């Protein structure tokens, strides 16, 4: 919506006259005039046109009226998406409201219809703000407070709360807060934040009172119940007591008892007589029974005796037959036993023979073995002697182990020495001329041709020549060592008993021979006696000890064994035969015993019967006597029984006794009960007295009614809490919806404008709340917690601008109307605001009312000029 013209007539000082502001355009429009020129009147009239019903007489309307009275008329031309309209309202006398389509000149709506039309213009959507955005002189959304307060001092509001306040002022939130506060205050008196009845609050007090009364009511109800029960019990007790104590009842009880006791005495006497008669009758009956049984026994005995003779004869015959049978069986048994015995004897003999044969055989074997062992012993002893001999020889011939080697070494040494000596000794060589052989003799002996050693002095007789003596000096040292060696040699040989080395060799050979022989001899002995001689000798001794006499062998052991087996089979057969005889024997025995027992029984019976019946001749008489006795006894029994029957009948003693007991107990019980009832009554009386004096029933009724009232009171509070809770919830929902719907978007719109508030500063915003957090000015961060009054009014203007922008974006452009909205702002700041206004006005209609002509000259924009106006008649 845009405003294009405003006209008013008969408003305030324009009594009987009017002014018009025509040609209001887009962008910034400024109506700048001195105070009381009519600027505020225009503003108020415009406000009333849009927001006051034409039928109303509220103070804003009253204030429009001239002092002289009359009916204010306000008219505005507007342009909307639907077209151009003129809306007009006249208040008081001739009140009317009309909407005219300026295009067609047609009356679109009037009266309430017109109001609705106007309301639709200024009412936005959800909790919407007015279609006109107002900022009044120095007024922000926050100043519903005392006007006297210094604006600067109360202006210490944060941007957040300021913007919030502005938004709420636009969306009706300030009243909402008041209403909510009231609602919450009232709710807070009743319940806690969590909705529970509040301690010390009237709601909880009412509940407690109700609960207290409920408890009290229960208690009194119980008291009353007890009282009534006690009354009932007392009434019953009294009735019962009266009944018991009535004299005729007592007398009746006593006389009944007396009668019953008399009856009891009578019954007792009759009972005694009856008992005696019964005993007598019983005795008689028993006699009769005895007589009858004696008689019956006699007759029976006679009958049985008669029938006994043939059975006796049969019994005798049976017994004899059994006896014969037994005899035969015995004979057969004995024969069988004999056969068994014979067979056993044969078997025994056969076994003995076989035993003897075995023994002879074993003895012969032992004798043979003894002879063999003796031979072996001899051989073994011979072998042993041989061993001993060889061992002795060995011992004699034995040489030390190294003896031969030592002799060999010595002889080699001696030979070496001799050779050395002879090499050094002068040699005598003789070669004969032919024919001169033997011509030289040595020591008498011809000197053979050849060479020989010379030692000492040698005399050579040379035939024909003489004796040549050769004297060779003795090599003394070598000769002495040789002699020593030879002496040792000789001594060694002598110690060994040897003549020479050759002999030593012989002895070595002989020793080897003897060792071989010894091994052979030992082997032989070991073969003969593997367990040693001692064991052999022991065995021989044992064998010799056994009775190794040689027995003559009679018969063949194999035949004997066969005979024994045959005898065994015969014994077995005989035994089986004998066993077969046994059952027969037993059967015969038992049959005999049985028949004898039968016979014996028959005989005893017969004897007994005879004893019973007595001697034969007296029997008939005795029978008759017994019959008589029985008849008499029977008669007597009948008589006594009749006597008993005469006495039977009348009152039973037990009945009479029971009756007496019963009546007596009635009398006693009545007395006891009366006593008990009196005690109970006393107790009940005092109980009832106490309760009745307290008038518990009245108290109960009172408390019951009070409880109902308390319950109703609690319910009223419950309803009240529900109502307030519901209201609070509805208010909160509406408030937060409005907040959600406008606050954030407005904040967003506001952001770019906020920078204008702060000189040379950059503003940072809180992401979550979209509120300015800090201002960076001259390189320093300042928190923007508080705002000055000037800033606040600027903020109010900016908020409206932001709102307007928001509405314009939503396709509902709304004019922003400022009535001296910037009174606290300095010129510099005002210029900034002017810039903002102009920037905003590119999309928006802004109408500025101001009396600050000079300051607002710089605002620029479209200047509006009021002109006199009178409505067309």
């Amino acid at each position, binding site marked *: 919506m845009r405003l294009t013209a405003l006209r008013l007539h008969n408003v305030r000082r324009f009594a009987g006259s009017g002014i018009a502001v025509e040609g209001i355009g887009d962008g910034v429009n400024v109506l700048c005039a001195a105070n009381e020129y009519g600027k505020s009147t225009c503003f108020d009239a415009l406000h009333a046109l849009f*927001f006051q*019903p034409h039928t109303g007489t509220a103070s804003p309307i009253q204030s429009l009226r001239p002092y002289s009275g009359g009916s204010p008329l306000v008219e505005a031309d507007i342009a909307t998406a639907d077209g151009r309209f003129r809306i007009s309202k006249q208040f008081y006398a001739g009140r009317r409201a009309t909407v005219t389509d300026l295009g067609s000149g047609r009356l679109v709506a009037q009266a309430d219809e017109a109001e609705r039309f106007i*309301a639709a213009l*200024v*009412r*936005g959507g*959800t*909790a*919407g*703000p*007015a279609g006109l955005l107002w900022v009044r002189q120095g007024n922000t959304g926050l100043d519903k407070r005392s006007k006297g307060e210094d604006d600067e001092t109360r202006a210490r509001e944060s941007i957040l709360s300021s913007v919030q306040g502005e938004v*709420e002022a636009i*969306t*009706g*939130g300030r*009243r*909402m807060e*008041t*209403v909510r506060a*009231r*609602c919450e205050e009232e709710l807070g008196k009743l319940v806690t934040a969590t909705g529970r009845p509040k301690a010390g609050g009237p709601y909880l007090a009412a509940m407690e009172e109700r609960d207290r009364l409920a408890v009290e009511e229960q208690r009194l109800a119980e008291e009353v119940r007890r*009282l*009534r029960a006690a*009354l*009932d019990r*007392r*009434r019953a007790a009294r009735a019962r007591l009266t009944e018991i104590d009535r004299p005729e009842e007592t007398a009746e009880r006593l006389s009944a008892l007396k009668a019953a006791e008399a009856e009891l005495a009578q019954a007792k006497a009759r009972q005694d007589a009856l008992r005696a008669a019964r005993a007598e009758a019983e005795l008689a009956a028993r006699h009769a029974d005895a007589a009858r049984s004696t008689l019956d026994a006699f007759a029976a005995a006679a009958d049985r005796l008669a029938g006994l003779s043939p059975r006796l004869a049969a019994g005798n015959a049976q017994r004899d037959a059994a006896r014969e049978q037994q005899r035969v069986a015995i004979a057969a048994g004995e024969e069988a036993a004999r056969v068994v015995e014979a067979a056993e004897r044969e078997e025994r003999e056969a076994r003995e023979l076989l035993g003897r044969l075995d023994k002879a055989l074993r003895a012969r074997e032992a004798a043979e073995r003894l002879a063999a062992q003796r031979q072996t012993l001899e051989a073994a002893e011979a072998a042993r002697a041989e061993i001993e001999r060889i061992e002795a020889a060995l011992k004699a011939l034995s040489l030390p182990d190294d003896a031969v080697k030592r002799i060999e070494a010595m002889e080699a040494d001696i030979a070496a020495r001799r050779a050395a000596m002879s090499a050094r000794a002068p040699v005598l060589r003789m070669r004969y001329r032919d024919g001169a052989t033997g011509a030289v003799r040595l020591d008498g002996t011809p000197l053979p041709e050849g060479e020989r050693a010379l030692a000492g002095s040698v005399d050579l007789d040379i035939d024909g020549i003489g004796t040549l003596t050769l004297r060779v000096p003795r090599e003394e040292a070598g000769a002495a060592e040789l002699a020593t060696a030879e002496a040792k040699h000789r001594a060694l040989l002598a110690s060994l008993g040897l003549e020479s080395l050759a002999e030593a060799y012989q002895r070595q050979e002989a020793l080897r021979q003897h060792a071989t022989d010894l091994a052979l001899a030992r082997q032989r002995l070991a073969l003969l006696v593997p367990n040693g001689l001692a064991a052999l000798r022991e065995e021989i001794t044992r064998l010799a000890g056994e009775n190794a006499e040689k027995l003559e062998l009679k018969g063949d052991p194999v035949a004997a064994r066969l005979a024994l087996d045959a005898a065994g089979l015969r014994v077995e057969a005989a035994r089986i035969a004998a066993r077969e005889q046994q059952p027969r024997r037993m059967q015969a025995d038992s049959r005999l015993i049985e028949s004898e027992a039968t016979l014996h029984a028959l005989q005893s019976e017969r004897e007994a019967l005879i004893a019973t019946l007595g001697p034969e001749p007296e029997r008939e008489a005795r029978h008759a006597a017994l019959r008589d006795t029985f008849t008499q006894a029977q008669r007597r029994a009948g008589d006594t029984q009749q006597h008993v029957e005469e006495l039977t009948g009348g009152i039973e003693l037990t009945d009479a006794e029971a009756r007496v007991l019963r009546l007596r107990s009635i009398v006693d019980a009545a007395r006891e009960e009366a006593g008990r009832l009196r005690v109970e009554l006393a107790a009940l009386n005092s109980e*009832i*007295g106490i*309760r*009745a*004096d*307290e*008038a*518990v*029933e*009245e*108290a109960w*009724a*009172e*408390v*019951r*009614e*009070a*409880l*109902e*009232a308390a319950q109703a009171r609690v319910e009223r509070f419950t*309803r009240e809490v*529900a*109502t*307030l809770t*519901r*209201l609070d919830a*509805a*208010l909160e*929902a*509406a*408030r937060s*919806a*409005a907040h959600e719907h406008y606050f954030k978007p407005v904040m967003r719109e506001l952001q770019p404008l906020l920078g204008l508030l702060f000189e040379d500063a950059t503003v940072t915003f809180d992401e979550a709340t979209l509120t300015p957090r800090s201002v960076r000015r001259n390189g320093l961060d300042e928190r923007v917690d508080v705002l000055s009054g000037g800033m606040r009014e600027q903020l109010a203007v900016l908020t409206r601008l932001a709102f307007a922008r928001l509405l314009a974006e939503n396709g509902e452009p709304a004019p922003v109307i400022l009535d001296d909205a910037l009174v606290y702002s300095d010129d510099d700041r005002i210029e900034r605001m002017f810039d903002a206004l102009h920037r905003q006005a590119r999309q928006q209609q802004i109408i500025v009312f101001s009396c600050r002509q000079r300051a607002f000259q710089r605002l620029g924009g479209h200047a509006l000029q009021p002109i006199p106006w009178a409505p067309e008649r």
Partner: protein
Amino acid sequence: MFRFVHSSDLHIGKRFGNMPEELRGRLREARHMALERLAREARATGAGTILLAGDSFDTETPSPAMLRQALSAMAGAPLRWIVLPGNHDSLLADDLWAAAQGALPDNVHLALTPEPLLFDGAAILSAPCTTRRPGRDLTEWMDDAATADGVIRIGLAHGPVQSFSEDGVGADVIAPNRPARAGLDYLALGDWHGQMRIGERCWYSGAPEPDRFKHDQPGRALLVSIAAPGAPADVAPIETGSFDWRTVPLDLLSGDDAVAALARALPAAAMRRHALLRISASGRTSPAMRSALEQAVAREAPEFGLLELDMDGLATDCEAGDLDAIDRAGALRQAAEALLAESNDEARSSAEREVASSALLRLFSYCEALRA
């Protein structure tokens, strides 16, 4: 000529626990004072006998003081009091009756047995309640009760003449034609607290001092005169009540001025102290009128013994103008509309709708206060 005062249901000792504390004592005292007023009326009208047809006492065990004070109030010639046990003070209350007998003034007779009580040429045939619920017509014996010729026969009984129970065969109901069947000249009944004529010779006297809103009658008794046996009974109501219990209907139409209607309905200022009024508002009204009515009642209440306002039957219509009174736009208006929608939402339970409705009314009154 036999002239007597017929009354019943004094319920002496009743404590009125559901009433405000300061009123209880007065109401209780008024019950006791009814005895004096009955005596005064009897003396003024020349009646020699006062018949109390049951429920003279509220409970079977009134406090001894209460009983003695009642008996003292009855003492004094030339009046004769005949006191019948009713269902509240039946014969089961043996303590009560024994104590009464123990302190009985000469001119007071307790009708404790169903037998004729003879004096002044009249026979009083009493049917005392044997228990709280006797379960049979106790007046039956009167049919066969013989009295001398020329004696005026007066029946005295306590109980309903109509059975309200579904399966009731009327066993515990007093036959309304008992006067005819038993040849009674008059049957004095008690139990019903409102005065009521059952037949030419059969009346409920009603309570001399009302104790509830039910009957909308002042406290009354009956003055009965019978010239001779068989003569018509001359029955005249006499006023005996001190407190006026009344339900005042206030039928409103949309647009009616409820406050003016209330002013018209309220009694004159002088009567108010003894008036217990229940304003029963019904019909339709606007939120503004509703709160105006509430305020008016609150304003007037202190003058009354009791002044209650019952608006259960009063529907409140919220119209656009009423919502405008809350706010023309904005969040408050939004909340009001949400509550109005909820209160008219048929899909919701009636309890929820009532809560929403009363929340809306509350919002209205807050805004009202804000505007003032």
